């Protein structure tokens, strides 16, 4: 798979985690593609942390980039029933448990569900933005990412980079498989048929517990 196919494969699988009516916050980059892969009978409500509810793509008529952008600074609009609100209200929604699912990328995840995704000291300092609040407050936290970075594992025994939050991740979806974070460790529940369990484990620093019901990832 090339880069684009890998991304589509991961996000298509993440889209299956959405339930009809879920209120969802999508991280910058790959996660913003989730709506393109939703089954026809599943409609989600997208929140953007800069203060929009029921975010939808804008059209030539509705785009007003001076007034309406999402958290990635992409011009958007809101659907009928949507609303605008200030940042205190927005993060009240986020920390207060009013967001069902957040999907976001990661630099590292570990077997305790710890997440690092906001800083590489001395190299990259984008900042945490809303990520620390989102992973603490959303009911379900899904990490979507490539399984390795230049061949090096990103799913570790212990995160090495500064954390975004402790024990916050529920599900990890990569091009190799799907892993649930459990009190016993990471359980591999689905695997891309192109790989063997041994290959997935070899690309993962954390020890994977293979689910007795391991299924092909689709």
């Amino acid at each position: 798979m090339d880069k684009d196919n890998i991304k589509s494969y991961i996000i298509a699988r993440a889209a299956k985690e959405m339930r009809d009516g879920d209120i969802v916050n999508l991280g910058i980059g790959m996660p913003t593609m989730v709506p393109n892969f939703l089954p026809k009978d599943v409609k989600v409500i997208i929140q953007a942390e800069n203060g929009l509810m029921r975010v939808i793509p804008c059209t030539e008529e509705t785009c007003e980039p001076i007034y309406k952008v999402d958290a990635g600074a992409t011009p958007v609009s809101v659907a009928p029933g949507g609303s605008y609100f200030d940042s205190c209200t927005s993060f009240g929604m986020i920390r207060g448990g009013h967001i069902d699912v957040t999907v976001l990328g990661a630099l590292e995840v570990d077997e305790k569900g710890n997440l690092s995704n906001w800083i590489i000291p001395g190299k990259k300092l984008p900042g945490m933005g809303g990520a620390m609040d989102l992973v603490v407050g959303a009911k379900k936290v899904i990490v979507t990412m490539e399984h390795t970075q230049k061949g090096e594992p990103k799913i570790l025994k212990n995160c090495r980079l500064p954390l975004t939050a402790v024990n916050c991740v529920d599900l990890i979806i990569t091009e190799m498989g799907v892993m649930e974070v459990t009190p016993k460790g990471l359980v591999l529940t689905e695997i891309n048929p192109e790989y063997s369990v041994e290959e997935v484990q070899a690309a993962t620093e954390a020890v994977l517990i293979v689910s007795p019901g391991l299924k092909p990832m689709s």
Partner: protein
Amino acid sequence: MPKFITLAEAVEMIPDGASIMVSGFMGCGNPHKIIDALSKSGKGNFKLICNDGAQPGGPMGEDYYGVAKLIHNRQVKHMVATHVGLNPEVGKQMNEGAMRVDLIPQGSFAEMIRAGGAGLGGVLTPTGVGTIVEDYKDYVHSVQEIDGRKYLLMKPIRADFALISGHIVDTAGNIWYKGATRNFALPMATAADIVIVEADRVVEAGEIEPENVVTSGIFVDYIVDGGKVSG
């Protein structure tokens, strides 16, 4: 009642080294005309309290958008923000040692400003527990445990000036915001010694129905009528 001032008077009021809150998110909701005038003023050494560094390029083809103008002109010596990844100039000046950058989780940032304007001694949030944010002594008072859950006690944030953008502002200073531009303007309008709003359009008091007022005019000290300013 707030006083109407020109762009030049607004800029004149802001001294070198001032701490300035600027509303907006990636430039959306920045008071663009005031920022543009300030960026040409030659003043600097500002402490900029803004969610982000905006972006080098604007949606209408601008070279620098919103607060990115102040950063590009090296007028900011200290930035308090949540995310600066979309403006590489921030990281560059930080690595050169020309700018201090403090990064705070966005929800905490909003609430700390709200606390600053609401007479609160701080904000308890679970966000940042177990991370290096715990060590930010300038912003975190302590880690507290309440009913078995850990929280960070974040300190309030205030500034000398808040520069905000309103779409319709009445002569009593009441503000109505368009689209998603309200983001940080609501808390910031309450948390600075001097609050200046740049109005896209000014109307008579009473023309915004009281039910539709988003920011009460009592928070606003000065209005710049952006509709009367060219450009």
